[in-house]
């Protein structure tokens, strides 16, 4: 191990980790919003839109992110749609993640009894109010484990941003590896950097999941 090489390049890895984390989180946030909208369209059977959403979910879940990114970054500009590397990263990750998040939220929504919605409407709430105060909080609790699993999955997928000429962790590592030849050092730092990003996220996920599970308003019929 060449420790001086490692210490010299810690700032590079920090910068790369920041890019990975930042764009990962943008992607996760946008995916969650898109996924939630799609899940509402699916669960409440909005005509026309529903068919579009279904097609989108299938497309996003059955194609690799790498191919999606190539299409966005190298394909679309040729027909006049030009996105920056950063925009491609967020759009690509959102395209992929939206489909997965939609499925997660949809199963959460479907787990809420139909009668809950009727009960909300029977006390004079409008449908949007019922969804917001009655249905969604319960759906979120059920969907939480799947949503967190998707979040971790999406952050891992950011490793493919390196094809977009973004200086994320992968690309930092690649650049250093090809120029310096210190493969082992570079790979060790790469692993450590990903652990540093992913470990807190997965610990947080476990904690929230446990809290949700014991929140105590589940459907168990204990009297």
């Amino acid at each position: 191990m060449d420790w001086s090489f490692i210490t010299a390049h810690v700032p590079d890895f920090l910068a790369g980790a920041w890019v990975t984390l930042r764009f990962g989180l943008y992607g996760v946030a946008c995916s969650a919003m898109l996924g939630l909208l799609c899940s509402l369209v699916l669960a409440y059977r909005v005509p026309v839109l529903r068919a579009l959403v279904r097609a989108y979910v299938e497309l996003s879940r059955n194609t690799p992110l790498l191919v999606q990114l190539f299409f966005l970054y190298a394909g679309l500009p040729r027909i006049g749609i030009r996105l920056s590397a950063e925009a491609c990263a967020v759009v690509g990750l959102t395209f992929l993640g939206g489909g997965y998040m939609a499925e997660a939220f949809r199963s959460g929504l479907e787990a809420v009894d139909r009668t809950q919605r009727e009960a909300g409407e029977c006390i004079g709430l409008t449908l949007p109010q019922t969804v917001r105060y009655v249905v969604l909080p319960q759906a979120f609790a059920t969907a939480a484990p799947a949503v967190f699993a998707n979040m971790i999955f999406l952050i891992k997928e950011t490793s493919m941003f390196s094809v977009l000429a973004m200086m994320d962790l992968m690309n930092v590592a690649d650049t250093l590896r090809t120029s310096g030849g210190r493969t082992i050092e570079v790979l060790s730092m790469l692993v450590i950097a990903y652990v540093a990003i992913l470990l807190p996220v997965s610990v947080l996920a476990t904690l929230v999941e446990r809290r949700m599970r014991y929140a105590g308003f589940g459907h168990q019929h204990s009297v």
Partner: protein
Amino acid sequence: MQDSGISILFKGVNFQRLMGGLWVTLRIALITIGLSVVLGLAFGLLMLSRRRTLRAVCRAWLEIVRFMPQLVLLYLVYFGFARLFGWDLDGETSAVIVFTFWGTAEMGDLVRGAVSSIPLHQRESAAALGLTPMQAYRHVLIPQTVRRLLPQAINLSTRIIKTTALVKMINVTEVLKVGQQIIGQFYRLREAPFWVYLTIFILYFLICWPISALAGWLEKRWA
């Protein structure tokens, strides 16, 4: 528009070349799936072992393999092993090694989940009917396990197929790489990249979608 790009697909043997590239990824995926199923069954049984330490080791292994982005694992094997052990593995071999380790772990977890989801009273009621343990396995327990396992295992195989797109990053000449070569040759066609990448996107979809539709159908049927 007379020669704007879509025609590139039908120039010379371009389409066959793309299919050839696709076959490279599919071959890796098929070998990986085959190995993962066989090894995963064994790994799953290990995870169900009565020995706590053995279970803990398996669990740790699973978590580690799951934790890292697959691209990082590919780099570790492809670039790292060469440096550490002097093994000069080619891209395809590295990919099969990495994906099989990962697929085995995931498959093992599915096996564990499927087996432990069969309630104890199923075993007991089989015994109460006077079935021998062998008969109980053959007629009661294994069919139920398979029904739980098969849809999930099929889903895992689509994940493996999508993941094999990554081998592009370790210099395997697969479908994306072939696409780039074609684009390079026909660089005068402005819209060529758009059509080539769109085609690859659709090809992946056409492979993965029927498989996940099958998994969904089986899941619904056996629910």
